[in-house]
């Protein structure tokens, strides 16, 4: 009798302990799925390289290139327009009435996500240009950590003015050289969701008919700096400045270009509105062949309009 009682008591104890443990185990099981989720998420993140996207909204900061490439198989039709200087007064509607304005029509195309090419024609000096942009490094975090995006941009421009329209009078015996080329390295970093910075070491070999370049026709070295600050989801303020190394300027009165603008994206279209002290629309003309000065009110109003078309779908 006594032993029977004892057995029941022991069994009760045992069951209580078991149920308690079972309960604890069940609870830790729910904990397990949460922990497992955390672990899987972490694993996925560590194994994945996340590339910085939209360092700049667009392939140009204002006049010059940004590190952004067009994605593969995307065609971008862009029209860039520069009006006359603001200091031309109210009669000329602060430059909007002034002719000739400079207009560039361009077609850019993404061959791959890291290689784009473009052609364009600008009215000033009847210039045709062709460029390519090659992305060498992409800023990323995660499995691969890369602090910068680096691109290389070679540009070639041809001045097709008729000899009777030449701005520069060449000395007799000097051969006409219509071709200029520009090499740019773009080094950019997206510091935060809203702020990106870019530095552009640049070498320009000019032609000899576009600008008074008798003092130096060996080549211009310049360093550009560009920045983007987002001010809303679809708008950002962009600033761009190119500093020419003084000893290498084509002429001493060549001025450095400073441009300030805003980007407005509307899904498919991008509008860029800006003020700049150059009306040039190819690299060599706005970086090295500019005489406009902000302090004299020579800045012009300008805009770029871009429309992209996906020519081939990424996947069906």
């Amino acid at each position, binding site marked *: 009798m006594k032993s029977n009682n004892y057995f029941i008591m*022991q069994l009760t104890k*045992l069951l209580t*302990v*078991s149920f308690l*443990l*079972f309960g604890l*185990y*069940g609870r830790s*099981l*729910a904990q*397990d*799925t*949460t922990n*497992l*989720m955390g672990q*899987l*998420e972490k*694993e*996925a*993140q560590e194994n*994945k390289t*996340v590339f910085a*996207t*939209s360092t700049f909204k667009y392939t140009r900061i204002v006049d010059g290139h940004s590190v952004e490439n067009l*994605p*593969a198989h*995307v065609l971008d039709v862009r029209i860039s327009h520069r009006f006359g200087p603001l200091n031309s007064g109210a009669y000329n509607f602060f430059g909007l009435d002034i002719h000739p304005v400079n207009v560039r029509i361009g077609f850019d195309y993404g061959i791959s996500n890291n290689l784009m090419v473009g052609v364009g024609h600008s009215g000033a000096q009847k210039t045709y240009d062709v460029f390519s942009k090659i992305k060498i490094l992409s800023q990323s975090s995660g499995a691969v950590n890369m602090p910068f995006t680096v691109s290389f941009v070679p540009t070639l421009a041809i001045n097709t003015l008729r000899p009777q329209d030449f701005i520069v009078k060449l000395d007799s015996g000097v051969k006409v050289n219509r071709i200029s080329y520009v090499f740019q390295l773009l080094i950019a970093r997206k510091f935060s*969701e809203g702020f990106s910075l870019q530095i552009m070491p640049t070498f320009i070999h000019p032609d000899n008919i576009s600008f008074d370049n008798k003092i130096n026709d060996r080549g211009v070295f310049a360093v550009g700096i560009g920045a983007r600050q987002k001010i809303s*989801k*679809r708008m950002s303020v962009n600033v761009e400045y190119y500093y020419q190394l003084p000893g290498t300027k084509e002429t001493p009165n060549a001025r450095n270009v400073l441009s300030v603008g805003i980007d407005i*994206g*509307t*899904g*498919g279209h991008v509008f860029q509105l800006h003020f700049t002290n150059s009306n040039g629309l190819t690299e060599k003309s706005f970086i090295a062949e500019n005489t406009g000065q902000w302090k004299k009110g020579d800045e012009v109003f300008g805009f770029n309009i871009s429309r*992209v078309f*996906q020519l081939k*779908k*990424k*996947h*069906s």
Partner: protein
Amino acid sequence: MPIRKIILFLVILMAANSQTKGQIYFTKNGSISFFSKTILQNIQADNNEVISILNLQTGSLQFSLLNAAFHFPKAKMEEDFNEDYIESNKYPRSTFKGSIANINKIDFSKDGTWQVNATGDLMIHGVTKNITTSGKIIINNGKISATSSFKILLEDYHIKIPSIVSNKISENIEITINCNYEKK
């Protein structure tokens, strides 16, 4: 006596263990896609890196995905989705935490298809909403998979479509889930 007690205790614990340990299933490459249908254009985006965990014992069900891993037919759409709509820098993940009701009625040892209801918290764009949706659990050759299809309103998750593109992006988005689970 203590030895008998300990043995009995261990046996019970082991039984409890074996009953629950094999009940967690997961996947790291589940797929979730969404579909927006308007008169002007249809948009479908796919994500094939979805993490999901299913506990056969408790019915607990979780999903987690990186918004940036959705792929679109057009590059521009993908950029706009990440930058303007889902804001994947600010809200990198979308998640679901909930459970399947009456999971115990399912016999996981036999092939078959079971209609189930899942209830839980769906978090998209930083906004959490409690939802209930129906789906299927399919058991085929001992392999467990789950599918579901349901609709959400973008408005509910504070995703605004600007009027200029409102005839190209639907307010009503259809989400389709397809996960093949493996045993942990």
